[in-house]
């Protein structure tokens, strides 16, 4: 699998002076980089630091404006990606490039098989071989829509490994979709790949992972290499953080101790709720949920355990198959989103780019959709008033929201996240259902949003917080529930449990 000539050059790939500009914006400036065989090179940086641009140049999506890339002792051009793949570069994307309606086997065949016939039998053997070798458990005959995100990621990795000649693998934020236990086995798998001589590029903003596995680290800030070090020279977490953030200081998130003597009024209650998924299958059965005034309820669970369906049901986008849902003591029926909004419920969806961004509309125009109240001007909308309200809003400022006139469909994922979060914060709802608030955000913004959520709860908002980051859940939540095996477990008090216990329940359900 690995190229036989690897010994003849000390590197698999060497980049020198890579520069990429978009109009007046320089996304990457003279990047220097080396990928060695049998080693893990981590690329660390905040949102917008230029990680994605760099990876897209190495995977051939973009052609560099300046600089050169060396492989096998000669300069190469990797654009377009087919050429990069032919040179043995594979990439595991954050948003998986898989076809949900097809089986795992067929998805792999699509990218690996050449010629007219699909030789399913031999391909199946190769899949089984690779997945047992690297501990990538994935059923070749399962349909992709049945898989959770972790399984989809394993499918992507198998796909890359089976592509002929792969020797460099780029991982784009691979652990963002994994639970703690899965992260551990992922890191073990990286180690096996390293031993087999693959060169690995790991894009991440999680410092623990870098410290746990990387041989070399390159830190990017504002499109430039701000720091480079290797394991032999010694890796230092604090140095990495300051290289990432520059001179910005991080304020720790503070949560006031709960006042246990006080009984707060209940604002939302589900009794014997059952929720069905898009294919009519039961996703959550017979669950109870109660949220009180000013309380943050954290929801843990492996991705795809019913988080999306639960969130949608609590915002009225999905009907309960059975059971009752009351908000402020008043029963509400699913299907009528407006009634939920009028009862004071707000929602930040887990996929804002798909579900919240309106192509061609500006940030300002997005703000009036369940955010800043619309002020009428004749038959129209008083946009100037709304703009000044937005520009004076402390919430938008604290999240460094981009300019109100920018088109939302041209924003990066992190900026879209800032937009929907600002909107929810400005609204100051009674009940906020918020999915994965820190997904795709850098450390600084993550801490800001966490602090904001705590303040919002102090002012009385009940928050249902879905997160894949157990640290975040423990830091923010007053109580925790776990979604596993079609059940909603808990509530548990964060002070009486720990991450290992919650992680075990996520994987094994109640029996843990």
């Amino acid at each position, binding site marked *: 699998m690995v190229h036989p000539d690897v010994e003849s050059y000390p590197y698999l790939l060497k980049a020198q002076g890579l520069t990429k*500009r*978009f*109009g*007046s*914006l320089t996304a990457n400036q003279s990047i220097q980089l080396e990928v060695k065989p049998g080693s893990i090179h981590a690329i660390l940086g*905040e*949102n*917008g630091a230029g990680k994605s641009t760099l990876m897209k140049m190495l995977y051939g999506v973009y052609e560099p404006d300046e600089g050169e890339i060396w492989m096998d002792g000669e300069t190469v051009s990797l654009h377009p990606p087919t050429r990069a793949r032919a040179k043995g570069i594979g990439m595991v994307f954050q948003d998986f490039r898989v076809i949900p309606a097809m089986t795992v086997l067929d998805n792999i065949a699509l990218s690996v098989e050449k010629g007219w016939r699909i030789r399913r039998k031999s391909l199946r053997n190769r899949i089984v071989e690779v997945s047992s070798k690297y501990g990538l458990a994935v059923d070749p005959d399962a349909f992709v829509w049945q898989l959770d995100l972790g399984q989809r990621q394993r499918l992507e990795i198998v796909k890359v490994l089976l592509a002929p000649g792969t020797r460099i693998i780029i991982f784009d934020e691979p652990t963002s979709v994994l639970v703690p236990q899965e992260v551990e086995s992922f890191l073990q798998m990286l180690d096996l790949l390293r031993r087999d001589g693959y060169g690995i590029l790991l894009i991440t903003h999680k410092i623990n992972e870098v410290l746990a596995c990387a041989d070399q680290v390159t830190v990017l800030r504002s499109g430039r290499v701000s720091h480079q070090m290797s394991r032999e020279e010694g890796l230092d977490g604090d140095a990495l953080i300051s290289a990432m953030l520059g001179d910005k200081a991080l304020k720790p998130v503070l949560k006031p101790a709960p006042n246990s003597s006080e009984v707060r009024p209940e604002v939302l209650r589900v009794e014997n709720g059952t929720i069905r998924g898009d294919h009519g299958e039961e996703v959550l059965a017979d669950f109870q949920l109660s949220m009180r005034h000013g309380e943050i309820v954290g929801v843990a669970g492996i991705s795809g355990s019913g988080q999306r369906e639960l969130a949608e049901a609590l*915002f009225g*986008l999905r009907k309960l198959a059975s059971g009752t849902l009351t908000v402020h003591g008043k029963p509400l029926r699913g299907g009528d*989103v*407006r009634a*939920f*909004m009028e009862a004071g419920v707000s*929602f930040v*969806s887990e996929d804002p780019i*798909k*579900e*919240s*961004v*309106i*192509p*061609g*509309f500006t940030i300002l*125009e997005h703000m009036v*959709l*369940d955010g800043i109240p*619309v002020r*009428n001007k004749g*038959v*129209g*909308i008083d946009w100037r008033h709304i703009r000044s309200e937005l520009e004076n809003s402390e919430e938008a400022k604290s999240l*460094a929201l*981009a*300019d109100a006139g*920018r088109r939302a469909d*041209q924003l990066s994922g992190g*900026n879209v996240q800032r937009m929907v979060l600002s909107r929810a914060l400005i609204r100051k709802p009674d009940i906020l259902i918020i999915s994965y608030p820190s997904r795709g955000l*850098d450390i*600084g*913004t993550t801490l800001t949003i966490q602090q904001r959520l705590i303040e919002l709860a102090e002012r009385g908002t009940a928050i249902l917080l879905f997160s894949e980051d157990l640290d975040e859940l423990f830091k923010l939540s007053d109580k925790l529930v776990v979604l596993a095996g079609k059940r909603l477990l808990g509530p548990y008090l964060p002070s009486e449990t720990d991450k290992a216990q919650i992680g075990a329940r996520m994987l094994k359900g109640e029996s843990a």
Partner: protein
Amino acid sequence: MKQPTFVPVGVSGGIGPFRSNWKPLFKQLLVWLSPFVVFGVFLLFYHVNPLRLYGSMVQSTFGDLYGLGEVLLKATPFILTGLAAALPAKAGLVNVGGEGQLAIGALFATGSAVFLLERFPAWLGIPIMLLAGALGGALWGMLIAALKVKGRLNETITSVLLNYVAGYTVAFFVHGILKDPESFNWPYSPEIAWTLRLPIFDGTRLHVGFIIAIVLAIVVWYVLAKTRLGFRIRVLGSNRHAAERAGMNVNRTYFWVLVAAGALAGIAGMIEISGIEGRLRPTTGVNYGYFGFLAAMLAWNHPLKLLGTSFLLGMISVAGNTLEIGSGLPASSATILMGLVLLFILGGRRRAKR
């Protein structure tokens, strides 16, 4: 983190200021000229001088008032059926039913004129007839809307299929109770009263229906661009999920947008009867719905740009007549030119969007 205050110049992917200035202009020119060049090659096979034809096209359009009137006359129904496609398109719907909605609008207008409005004065009769036409189109649109909202049937399919039903419904009436007793068995309705005919501009055949169409285009544009209702429609059309999450009633919006579109096309049917033909035939307004759809596509569903594209299609239609008289080619060969214009413009836009 402070975001760079970089505003992309139209196309994403970083095109420098130099390239973005004159190259698109050149491309635009190429896109508009190419269909005429290709059609010219076609004409050469039939020994027609394309330059002379295009010259006479321009000449007959702008040469005198009558010619201009003919083009505007042709453009009028295209504007209205174009609006019937453009308005739903802004809500994310594809209404190809302008054809049928026009036909039923014409049927209702003629029916009301023949059975009810015979002796009404013009100031009262014409508005009622207009409302009858709008009602007919709206009802036909409502069928599509109900199938969409209640039956979850795709509006593109149902609207196309109902066009055939509408055509046969008109035929049913003009062969039956709406047939002119003095027609020697030809299938057409009696002529409507002269008081119900739209006033005509001196020196042309152009009637005030043209003004009505322009006013309605401006109204649709205003509603879409400036009002809260229009804002909601555009949100829905751009991202249905976002509209749901903003608490909008998606089905209700779909329903009334399709009904309104039907009414617009129905008005086109009334104008055809009251402004030009004076009686209903099975062929009244045939293909106008599809031409309107084409005009809307060319205008990228913008109600004001639609005025321009309708004018262009009107010009090409009239040129078809010139073609027949001047060179012996059938008038319908001009539809080849229309098809080419559509192909190049949509193809050109598609590339530019990348």
